[in-house]
């Protein structure tokens, strides 16, 4: 078998290359990404299994009204972490997914180690207040969740009556609670990511946040059982494990997530590079073994099942799901005509998808093609982090070289007429109301003075225009001394030359921007499924549905659980 990336004289194209940033970094495609074996959630569950992480200690001090606390300590080869969960009695009128909420059904922190009673008391005085409280360097995350009232009541009532809840209802909602924020990396006094980044379990981004949500799911399962038992007494049914496993944890995500991709260009570049490199490695395989082909086909069937239970009321998403359903059926039909021994099968299949399928299905296929190849791909997870910090500017670069860089990497932006209202209709800002990130209408609201630097394309075009009046050989250092207002854009333009996937190649302030594309992109890297936009700027998703719980992770599939079982 030929090695990856070696010239292939008998193949239509010489060497498979990573896809160009102009293709990958468009919002339409980023907003169509799917989870993959490089998703942070799956990297975590594989690690939990491979390193034999187990729940070593548990307390459950919750009363008959559902108020109290619980702890779940999970231990790995070197460290133990404890989810400390507080359950509250939330009046229905206070149940809001927004940042501006001030009370929740449950609040959480992930403690670094096993907390003492004094720690629990300290956390009880702070965690329930979330942003208004303080945590410390012994805590890794801060999170909260609200019940899905509809499913919660159904499950409690059914179990209390000695019956199992309805599978259809479980699948139509997907979760009993949804998190409305999971803060990490130094927020509200928590430990900084860089302080723990040298621990193997945190080498990949967002692992502390993913572990928090994973343990929250266990707590929620136990809490619903407790509340049912309070109501039903000794004849209460125990939730069947197969049903419990179908329950994920919901997540409600607003605009706060969108700036992350713009504010962490190097990190974003690394995520996309890893995904693109994985695709290159698979497309470069000359042949496909029959067992690998069967894995792929099995997971395609399970993907189709998952798509069948993916519901959204948002017209844009509904259309995308419908198209995806049709496209995956076409893919299935196409596969029946494919001879698995075909040379360069994966590459041909990918090329076929580009000519026939929509973007959503193309990206779904990309994720599926990676599935059989743990040995080829999983080591890439070590490249998904980025060092903290800001790239130093190369001040010796002549301005004509900077201009050329901009013309090479931002031609699409230079074509836009930034003087029109349509191209800069929006402005990103932070409201003084609980610092909620928002997106407003620049020409209709008094927000421009508070605009966040989240329109790199516009800023780089302004920089390009300013450079015109300088001599070609003037160095950036001289230019920036006179124009410090372009410093941010100079840094980005220089970065993109080294990190081609660092920048979203679309206008992030246009009247036609669909912000949830940005949210979905990040959430797909987390491993989310069933994206359900509730408006153009927030969406709900499901995490960990069908995942094994900690008490069964050693004996069940800890990797491809994300694809629902066929039976």
């Amino acid at each position, binding site marked *: 078998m030929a090695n990856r990336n070696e010239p292939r004289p008998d193949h239509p194209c010489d060497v498979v290359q990573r896809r160009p940033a102009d293709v990958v970094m468009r919002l339409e495609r980023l907003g169509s990404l799917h989870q993959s074996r490089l998703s942070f959630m799956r990297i975590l569950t594989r690690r939990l299994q491979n390193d034999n992480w187990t729940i070593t200690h548990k307390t459950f001090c919750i009363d008959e009204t559902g108020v109290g606390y619980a702890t779940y300590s999970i231990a790995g080869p070197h460290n133990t972490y404890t989810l400390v969960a507080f359950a509250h009695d939330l009046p229905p009128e206070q149940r809001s997914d*927004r940042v501006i909420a001030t009370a929740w059904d449950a609040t959480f922190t992930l403690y670094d180690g096993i907390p003492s009673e004094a720690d629990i008391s300290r956390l009880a005085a702070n965690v329930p207040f979330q942003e208004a409280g303080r945590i410390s360097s012994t805590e890794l995350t801060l999170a909260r969740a609200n019940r899905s009232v509809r499913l919660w009541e159904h499950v409690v009532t059914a179990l209390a009556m000695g019956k199992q809840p309805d599978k259809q209802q479980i699948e139509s909602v997907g979760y009993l609670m949804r998190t409305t924020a999971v803060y990490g990396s130094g927020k509200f*006094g928590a430990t900084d990511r860089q302080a723990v980044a040298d621990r193997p379990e945190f080498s990949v981004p967002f692992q502390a946040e993913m572990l928090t949500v994973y343990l929250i799911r266990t707590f929620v399962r136990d809490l619903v059982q407790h509340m049912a038992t309070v109501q039903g007494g000794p004849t209460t049914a125990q939730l069947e494990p197969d049903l419990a496993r179908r329950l994920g944890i919901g997540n409600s995500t607003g605009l706060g997530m969108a700036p992350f991709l713009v504010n962490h260009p190097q990190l974003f570049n690394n995520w996309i590079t890893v995904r693109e490199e994985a695709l290159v490695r698979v497309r470069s395989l000359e042949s496909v073994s029959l067992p690998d082909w069967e894995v792929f086909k099995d997971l395609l069937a399970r993907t189709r099942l998952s798509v069948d239970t993916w519901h959204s009321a948002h017209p844009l998403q509904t259309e995308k799901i419908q198209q995806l359903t049709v496209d995956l059926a076409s893919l299935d039909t196409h596969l029946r005509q494919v001879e698995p021994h075909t040379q360069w099968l994966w590459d041909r299949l990918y090329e076929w998808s580009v000519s026939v399928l929509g973007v959503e299905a193309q990206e779904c296929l990309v994720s599926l093609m990676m599935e059989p190849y743990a040995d080829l791909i999983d080591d890439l997870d070590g490249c998904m982090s980025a060092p903290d910090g*800001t790239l130093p500017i190369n001040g010796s670069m002549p301005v004509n070289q900077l201009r050329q860089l901009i013309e090479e990497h931002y031609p699409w932006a230079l074509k836009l007429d930034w003087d029109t209202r349509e191209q800069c209709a929006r402005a990103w800002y932070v409201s003084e109301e609980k*610092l909620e990130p928002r997106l*407003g209408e620049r020409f209709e609201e008094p927000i421009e003075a508070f605009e966040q630097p989240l329109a790199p394309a516009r800023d780089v075009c302004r920089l390009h225009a300013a450079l015109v009046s300088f001599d070609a050989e003037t160095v950036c*250092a001289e230019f*920036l001394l006179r124009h410090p207002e372009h410093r941010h854009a100079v840094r980005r333009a220089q970065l993109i030359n080294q990190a081609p996937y660092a920048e979203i190649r679309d206008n992030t302030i246009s009247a036609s921007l669909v912000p949830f594309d940005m949210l979905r992109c990040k959430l797909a890297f987390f491993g989310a499924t069933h994206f359900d936009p509730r408006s*153009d700027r927030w969406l709900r998703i499901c995490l960990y549905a069908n995942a094994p719980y900690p008490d069964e992770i050693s004996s069940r599939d800890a990797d491809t659980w994300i694809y629902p079982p066929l039976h």
Partner: protein
Amino acid sequence: MVDLSANEAASLTKLAARGAGYPWGLCEEAVVAARWLCSCELSGSQALVLLCQQVDRQPLSRFTPHMDGAIWTSADSSLCPLICGSALCDRATLLTGLFHIVIKNLISPILLLPFVSQLSVQSGLPVQIAWNELVLMVDAERMYANRDVKEFDQSCSLNVVPTTVELSVHIAPSASLVEWSMNIDSRQTLSPACLQELQKLAQRTYAPNTEQSRLQGAGAGNSDNE
């Protein structure tokens, strides 16, 4: 005293600088500087407050150096360490040989130290900075000073008047200098008064709440009781 995580301190620094009127690119430099100071366990926060209060949304050209050979001066005001520091680092690969730069009337010189460190790393040259009685030498990522960190920090906080700073290439550390260590896990401790000043500056970057903003800005209603 208030304990902040390094990321909280960085975020507050960025917004405070923005609130004082700095463009975002220089706010990013302020963050790099704050992180460096934090990892040395130097308290740059009070110096930042002092700087922001002096700059306070005035035109930055007033605080930008005029470079007359190796002498950096401001025509009608004091110089800003964020602007001077960024200008130094932007010139890192342009500075050759035994350079000697004099920066006159510099506000909060402690805020220049992170840039001197970066300059040394980028240029590959050992750089010495000196003002008043204080001397710091940076060679790649190793630092030596004529005071330990605590004394150096105290001297800086006692002196709040703009000062002339001299920078030069220094070949060998003097035996009388103390080596400093860096701790990348450091958090920031600052006084409640300093925190309040920084928060006040940061507050200027938040848009006042309006009904339209509350209803439309997040694209969501206020209740999710379903």
